[in-house]
């Protein structure tokens, strides 16, 4: 199981790197989908199959479809790809690389200093997630649903047919 974790983690990192470096927007989105699927597999290996399934259904299967849908309608041509590749000049890498280095060394320090088990072998199925969501985290669930309702009403208002 550990090997599966490392393989899917590696796939996630590589595909995320490809997301950043692709100049074609749809290709970048495809790599992002692969990255999300890899993360779902990581969840599955860590004993959270419910989170894994939701990652695929909601992120890879719904939100990313909408992204692809919008990008398709924009009909970006080779001009957009050229513009993108200009933005990817070596100089723009300096700042982000420095920040990533800081984060990476922090992570390495944590791994080296904390002893014990890194893999959670505890299994949490759908029932456990549901009990947690509507038990200790019910406030968070309610807040998120309020936010979604506000978004829904906002979208309805924007999409309302105008009466003259």
């Amino acid at each position: 199981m550990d090997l599966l974790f490392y393989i899917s983690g590696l796939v996630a990192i590589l595909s995320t790197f490809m997301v950043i470096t692709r100049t074609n927007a749809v290709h970048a989105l495809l790599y992002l989908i692969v990255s999300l699927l890899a993360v779902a597999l990581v969840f599955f290996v860590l004993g959270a199959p419910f989170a894994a399934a939701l990652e695929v259904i909601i992120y890879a299967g719904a939100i990313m479809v909408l992204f692809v849908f919008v990008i398709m309608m924009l009909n970006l041509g080779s001009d957009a790809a050229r513009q993108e590749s200009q933005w990817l000049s070596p100089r723009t890498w300096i700042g982000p690389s420095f920040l990533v280095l800081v984060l990476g060394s922090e992570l390495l320090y944590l791994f080296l200093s904390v002893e014990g088990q890194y893999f959670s072998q505890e299994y949490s199925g759908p029932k456990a997630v549901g009990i947690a969501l509507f038990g200790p985290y019910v406030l968070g669930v309610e807040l998120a649903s309020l936010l979604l309702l506000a978004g829904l009403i906002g979208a309805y208002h924007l999409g309302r047919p105008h009466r003259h």
Partner: protein
Amino acid sequence: MNQVLIQLAVIIVILLGLTTVSAGLIWLERRLLALWQDRYGPNRVGPFGLLQVAADMIKIFFKEDWIPPFADKPVFVLAPAIIMVTTFLSFAVIPFAPGIGIVDLNIGLLFFLAMSSLGVYSVVLAGWASNSKYALLGGLRGAAQMLSYEVFMGLSLMGVVMLTGSFNLSAIVEAQRGLWFVIPQFPAFVIFLIAGVAETHRLPFDLPEAENELVAGFHAEYSGLKFGMFFVGEYLGITLIAAMITTLFLGGWLGPVLPPFVWFFLKTFVFICLFILLRASLPRLRFDQLMAFGWKVMLPLVLANLLVTGAIVLARS
């Protein structure tokens, strides 16, 4: 080691069986359509025209597999593979009979929903990669249609999950030993059937390909074996939805006298024929009608069903 070999054999038998069945469906559909439209259909090649499928397959294999120069090559090639892979993967969680199935996943139902939501990419990416206006329009319609109907499909199944208390498909079948879920969950059954037709984009919901307005929609630029994959993928999708209806609402393999596998096969077959009858008898909707029907009729219905089921389950416990 032996266990692994048996498992592999089961996987191969199911894969080959599904491919054969879905290719055979092409013949079945043409014959049944002909029957209902009072003509003969393919009846020249082999007994009852059965070898028509073989002839079609040979033809499709030897056609030129052409990729248009204006297409986005890698995505163009990837798109038809996605529908085959996601549909085949969905079959992995279906219990054909007690003990006969590829994997008994405890989140089986969610896995099916996940795979069917990934199947949308096939239509969308085929439409985009073809880089032609008809294909793009088909892809856009496909994305909007499948995304909307997925919502009702997922929600309609939650009543079944509530009554069973599990996402495991074998557990769902076992829970129907006394009473098939088609009776207590009748609205959910109807909604799932309609959403299933929309998910497989079959008539009357075949707006993404609508040949008299969009040439052939998202697969207008495809030829040869890649077109064949979309074609067989559609029949695989029909088989999948029919098998899911059987598992979730009609007691799966349960039934008297006959062996379990035969019951499963018979029930699935009835629904496949229903899908074909729908094609033979219903005209195609307009796209705005399709979307309005989904959001204004199906969504309130499915939410009401969920509410009532939840209330009853709570009151009984």
